[in-house]
């Protein structure tokens, strides 16, 4: 191996920054300057870039223990998995329910396959909500009581964001549903996509409140572990519900495309599937990191 005699070019430096940027933040905080120096010395070949990308993926999956605080990692995982659950729930609710709402999409003869998918979606979504509620409400009550005791009303407001954001979105949904019914037709694909985007924004706002309080109060102990485990199980269940909702939509599209006003089409469904996949992968990776941190900390005791 020979040392490069010429300084790394601007393209190499940009590529080096991109490659180092693929690592987790805690890794970058510790090793980024020296790896950038190494790449400035050695250059960025395609083989080296592939090696760094593979190592970066492993660093996300299995971060070195000395780079983070285990209790903070567990809280961060809980926040990510909880946010993922809300995103998946918003997507499942919109896609599944809008396709079934007769005011938005006039009734069509029920095919046994779509009926089965719909029942699976409804059951999985309800089970997921029940698991999440059972797992996170004790921690939520703890955070709320702590905020009330300290008269931290901003934290109280943040903790109520899931309810207020959901309520706000439901109001928009009801208004639009009435408007569509009065117009005598279903919901156009454009409005459907807009509603989906609004639902995701509402979901992000709903997740942001408790996550901010979680970071501020930094609780530990069994309730955090319980909330983390429950959120993980609830997220997987909700991911299954979203897959069933997408399959249901696909089946309805295939059989009723000519008569149904609400017709998402293959590109929308593909985008939806990609979204679900990305959110699920993020949740899985984060849950795995949290579980790993849990094994190395005293949180269990």
């Amino acid at each position, binding site marked *: *191996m020979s*040392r490069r005699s010429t300084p790394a070019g601007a393209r190499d430096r940009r590529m080096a920054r991109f490659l180092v940027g693929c690592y987790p933040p805690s*890794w970058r905080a*510790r*090793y980024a*300057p*020296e*790896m*950038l*120096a*190494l*790449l400035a*010395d*050695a250059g960025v070949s395609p*083989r*080296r870039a592939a*090696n*760094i*990308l*593979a*190592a*970066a993926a*492993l*660093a996300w999956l299995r971060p*070195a*223990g*000395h*780079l983070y605080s285990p209790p903070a990692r567990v809280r961060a995982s809980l926040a990510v998995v909880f946010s993922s659950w809300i995103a998946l729930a918003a997507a499942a609710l919109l896609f599944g329910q809008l396709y079934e709402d007769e005011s938005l999409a006039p009734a069509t003869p029920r095919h046994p396959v779509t009926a089965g998918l719909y029942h699976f979606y409804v059951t999985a979504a309800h089970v997921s909500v029940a698991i999440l509620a059972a797992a996170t409400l004790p921690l939520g009550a703890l955070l709320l009581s702590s905020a009330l005791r300290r008269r931290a009303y901003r934290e109280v407001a943040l903790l109520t964001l899931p309810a207020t954001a959901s309520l706000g979105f439901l109001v928009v949904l009801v208004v639009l549903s009435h408007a569509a019914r009065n117009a005598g037709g279903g919901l156009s694909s454009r409005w459907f996509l807009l509603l989906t985007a609004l639902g995701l924004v509402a979901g992000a706002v709903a997740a942001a409140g408790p996550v901010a309080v979680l970071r501020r109060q930094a609780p530990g102990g069994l309730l955090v572990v319980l909330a983390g485990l429950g959120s993980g199980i609830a997220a997987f269940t909700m991911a299954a519900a979203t897959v069933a909702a997408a399959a249901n939509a696909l089946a309805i599209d295939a059989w009723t495309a000519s008569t149904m006003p609400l017709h998402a089409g293959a590109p929308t469904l593909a985008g939806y599937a990609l979204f679900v996949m990305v959110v699920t992968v993020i949740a899985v990776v984060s849950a795995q990191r949290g579980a790993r941190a849990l094994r190395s900390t005293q949180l269990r005791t």
Partner: protein
Amino acid sequence: MNEDVGRWADPPLLVMASLAEAPKHGYAIIRDVADTMGVSLGAGTLYAVIARLEERGFIEALPAQDRRRPYRLTAAGVRELELQVQHMRSVASLAAKRVHLITHPAGA
């Protein structure tokens, strides 16, 4: 003996062997491993190894010099490397005896 470091020609062992000579920064380790052991370590692999060895307390970072941070073996790292070398030596000795039996079978 640490199983993660024990496999033959594993990057952790190569890095520890390189640092046994003297403290080195990342690029110097890559060059040394390539020049003296004939193995080309990727930058991603190297820093994954550095993070693991640091996590286990086998190496430690020295103050950075112009962004380049040298590393050195700790006392625990030296002990681990000794164990690995002993293990490799016993495996090599056993392998040599068995190879000798194959190449020089009794009664041949």
